[in-house]
């Protein structure tokens, strides 16, 4: 059981929350991980900004770094107008980043390794894009799907392809984050499992176990990089999609 690489993704129900609409809801380890993530992010920001001073302390510097990082990303891809979405983008970035890093703790659930969580995040982004796009541009938002300079005869075909391409965005956005976290954690667990099973073979096994151990150490470092990078990629793509809502172009 200890060597089962999938075991870490099992949902464990801690206690029932009650029934809503004929479905039973439980407080699970995934819910706990997400709750802890939100608590940590909120606590960190509150703590860092509680004693706001002109010369920032250590915590405040970190918070300012995070703010500057996300703000620069948003400004560079969605322009100054994009800053109205800053709360959403910053929350998404911090949530994914902290959830990914939480997953690096042993015995801790990686909330972002579940497709339903990442899909919910992606749908939040896409619904924001669609709702805001229609609110701001009315039906002009649909200009996104009708490229200029295309002969009338093929416009229906091109529009259909563009619409499918647009609808596939939340899926690719969520699958990318989910796939990276899932694959990374499984790889890590498989190599760690090699260490355990080789070491149980005796003296030669222990000697041989050094190789997968070194690999595990390397992969752990790589996973930390991936955890940050995936949060960043999600943020960048969010900014690009929000740019669509602001400037559907026509």
């Amino acid at each position, binding site marked *: 059981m200890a060597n089962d690489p999938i075991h870490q993704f099992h949902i464990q129900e801690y206690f029932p929350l009650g029934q809503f609409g004929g479905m039973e809801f439980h407080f699970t380890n995934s819910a706990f991980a997400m709750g802890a993530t939100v608590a940590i992010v909120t606590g960190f920001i509150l703590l860092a900004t509680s004693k706001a001073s002109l010369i920032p302390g250590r915590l405040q510097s970190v918070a300012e770094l995070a703010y500057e990082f996300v703000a620069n990303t948003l400004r560079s891809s969605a322009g100054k107008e994009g800053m109205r979405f800053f709360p959403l983008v910053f929350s998404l970035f911090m949530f994914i980043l902290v959830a990914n890093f939480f997953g690096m703790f042993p015995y801790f659930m990686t909330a972002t390794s579940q497709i339903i969580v990442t899909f919910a995040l992606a749908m939040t982004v896409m619904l924001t894009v669609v709702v805001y796009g229609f609110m701001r541009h009315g039906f002009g938002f649909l200009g996104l799907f009708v490229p200029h300079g295309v002969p009338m005869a093929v416009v229906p075909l091109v529009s259909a*392809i563009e619409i499918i*391409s647009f609808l596939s965005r939340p899926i690719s956005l969520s699958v*990318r984050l989910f796939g990276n976290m899932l694959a990374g954690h499984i790889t890590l667990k498989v190599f760690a499992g090699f260490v355990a099973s080789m070491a149980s073979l005796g003296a030669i096994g222990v000697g041989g176990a050094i190789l997968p151990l070194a690999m595990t150490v390397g992969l752990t470092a790589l996973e930390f990089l991936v955890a940050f990078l995936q949060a960043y990629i999600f943020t960048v793509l969010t900014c690009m999609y929000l740019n669509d809502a602001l400037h559907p172009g026509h």
Partner: protein
Amino acid sequence: MSDTGSPGDEETIKRMAEDEAALSARLRALSQKLDKASEEAKAAERAQPSNEVNAQGMRLAFRIVGEFVSGVLVGAGLGWLFDRWLGTSPWGMIVLLLLGFVAGVLNVLRAVGKVAPPEARQVSSRAKKK
């Protein structure tokens, strides 16, 4: 086997020389092959990128697979819904799955930067019109 000169001996010597020639030819071919193999291995080692580059390639691969598969999945899903609502089975599925493939390819081309995203393309076509 000294060269005392009986015809049988001569024959043996000739055969031995031939054998030797064949052997040395084989040896040469083998050493050439070995050289080539070791060179190839060296070249592969040189081309073998570090772990870092491998990870980058893997990320790119993940991304592109995701882009393509999501296009196909959305096409299939829309086709299924169309058929369910309009009772046009199997035509909605066939047409939309094909369109989904096209959209997947479009997604991939956009991901690798071969095709401009919709907004950019519109801007450039507007600029051209002016």
